[in-house]
């Protein structure tokens, strides 16, 4: 849901005259909401701008996001950044956002 909220705020800011760059780790949601510019990083949720205490990785991701801001020209485009979460291939994707990902993760209607 964060990704949809980011997209909506980005669009509102862009309409108000602010240039925006939205980050994403959920490509399908970002494709749907269509922020003006987005960069996609294939990392688990909660790690959009890197791994804890890895300053160089965090900085590199941000620099790539700003480079995209400066060079993108097509509204709604998403640029994929080449970062790999886990070179040992332990398959974090399998458990991501499946039942059991979060304890007591229930959607409240109220």
């Amino acid at each position, binding site marked *: *849901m*964060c*990704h*949809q*909220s*980011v997209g*909506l*705020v*980005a*669009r*509102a*800011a*862009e*309409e*108000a*005259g*602010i*240039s*925006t*760059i939205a*980050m994403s*780790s*959920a*490509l*399908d*949601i970002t494709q*749907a*909401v*269509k922020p*003006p510019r987005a960069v996609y990083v*294939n990392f*688990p*949720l*909660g*790690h*959009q*701008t*890197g*791994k*804890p*205490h890895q*300053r160089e990785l*965090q*900085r590199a991701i*941000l620099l790539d996001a*700003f480079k995209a*801001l*400066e060079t993108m020209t097509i*509204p*709604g485009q998403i640029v994929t950044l080449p970062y*790999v979460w886990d070179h040992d291939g332990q398959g974090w994707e399998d458990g*991501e*956002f*499946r*039942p059991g990902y*979060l304890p007591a*993760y229930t*959607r*409240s*209607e109220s």
Partner: protein
Amino acid sequence: MSPVAYIPRTRDLYPDYPPYRWVVNEDAPWTPLKAPLAECKVALLSTGGIHTSDQTPFHSRDDTTYREIPRDVDFKDLCVSHFGYITDDARADPNCVFPLERMRELQTDGIIGELANPAYSMMGGIYSSRRVRDQLAPAIVDLLVQREVDVLLLVPA
């Protein structure tokens, strides 16, 4: 590895509810950069539920409040309250979803002209897209415009 498909996985997490209707847009607004980045005032916004220890935590789903985080905050004073992602690493190092310390460095290094003060934080797990669009986004955008922000970086959790 192909990207994780969050839309079907979200549906599978809530089999007893009608499928969530994600916002789908056909095109996007556009404001070209008016100046080189090194001359721009850049604001950071995170939807990871970051707040300071003396601010009210985000309470639950559909919390459409936001927090202003001082640019020079001591990271030891930051907390995370969010129901929608595993927050362990964000608690250990908030830069994972709220890269304010890295942004300070980009300002010092002259990559960005100025890091806006404050930074902005919200809890992105808001099911009502209408409330985001009609309440939360305008409130934040009004502040950004008043404060003459040129560029906004948005980081979801």
